[in-house]
């Protein structure tokens, strides 16, 4: 219960921010927070709180699995640092690159394979798997 107390501000914020399917569980001295954020801003806000409670995420006592809710057809912006985003044949960096989505361009989400890999389509019609970290749902 000590961990729930430590991260109370975080779990309360998750509750009030409307996290979908929010689950807070403590197991073997690690607190697990799971759910889906309604917007990317909500996810970022929770991570800011996490970073404030545990600077630089050093304690290793929290796993916060929060994805941004986005269904098929959602538009997402390519938020790479500056480069174009690889579109691959399958979900994995070992998969061949079949196209590129331009930095800051908008793509359409077709489906989510998992939290890391999304099947997308560019406006130019290129289709394949891209790394979700670099896609921000609009």
């Amino acid at each position, binding site marked *: 219960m000590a961990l729930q107390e430590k991260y109370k501000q975080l779990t309360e914020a998750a509750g009030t921010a409307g996290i979908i399917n929010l689950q807070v569980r403590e*197991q073997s001295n690690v607190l697990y927070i799971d759910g889906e954020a309604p917007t990317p801003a909500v996810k970022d806000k929770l991570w800011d709180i996490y*970073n404030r409670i545990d600077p*630089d*995420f050093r304690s*290793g006592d929290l*796993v916060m*699995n929060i994805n941004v809710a986005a269904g098929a057809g959602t538009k997402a912006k390519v938020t790479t640092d500056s480069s174009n985003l690889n579109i691959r044949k399958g979900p994995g960096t070992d998969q061949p690159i079949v196209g590129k989505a331009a930095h800051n361009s908008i793509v359409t989400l077709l489906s989510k394979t998992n939290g*890391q890999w999304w099947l997308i389509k560019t406006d130019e019609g290129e289709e394949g798997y891209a790394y979700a970290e670099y896609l921000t749902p609009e």
Partner: protein
Amino acid sequence: MKITKILFSLLLISSVFIIGCGPKDADIKAAVEEKLKANTDMTGPMTVSVTDGVATISGECKDDACRAKCEDLAKSAKGVKSVVNNCVVAVKTVAPVEVASDDALATGVMDATKDHPGVKASVNDGVVTLTGEIKRDQLSKLMMTLNTLKPKKIDNQLIIK
């Protein structure tokens, strides 16, 4: 004589009326039930019984706050002298945390660290250990992704530049 009879019967009627003036238990029961409808945190049906103004409530509540609220609501019903709170708090069945296999984690970690060349990562029994170095503005992004891989724990030993 006649007047005395009339007066006596009047007295009798009024005494019956006065004695029976407080709300009946059945009415109190209905009032309590009505009040409890305001508590939407009940997880099961609520039963109420009233004897001589003492209301006994039982049912299943989501948490302690819900249980206390039930009692307060019952007390606020007209005619209730006291409340016996037999409500129970529902025991939550929590599914255990699902941890990904080391193979799945290793693949996910490899993908996640691909664009962070200074970061080294190892996976052992669900625990992801990070060593090497990273720029501070990149740390959150990497951690966000690693946290979605369903690890048991992330041991962050990165040197932050």
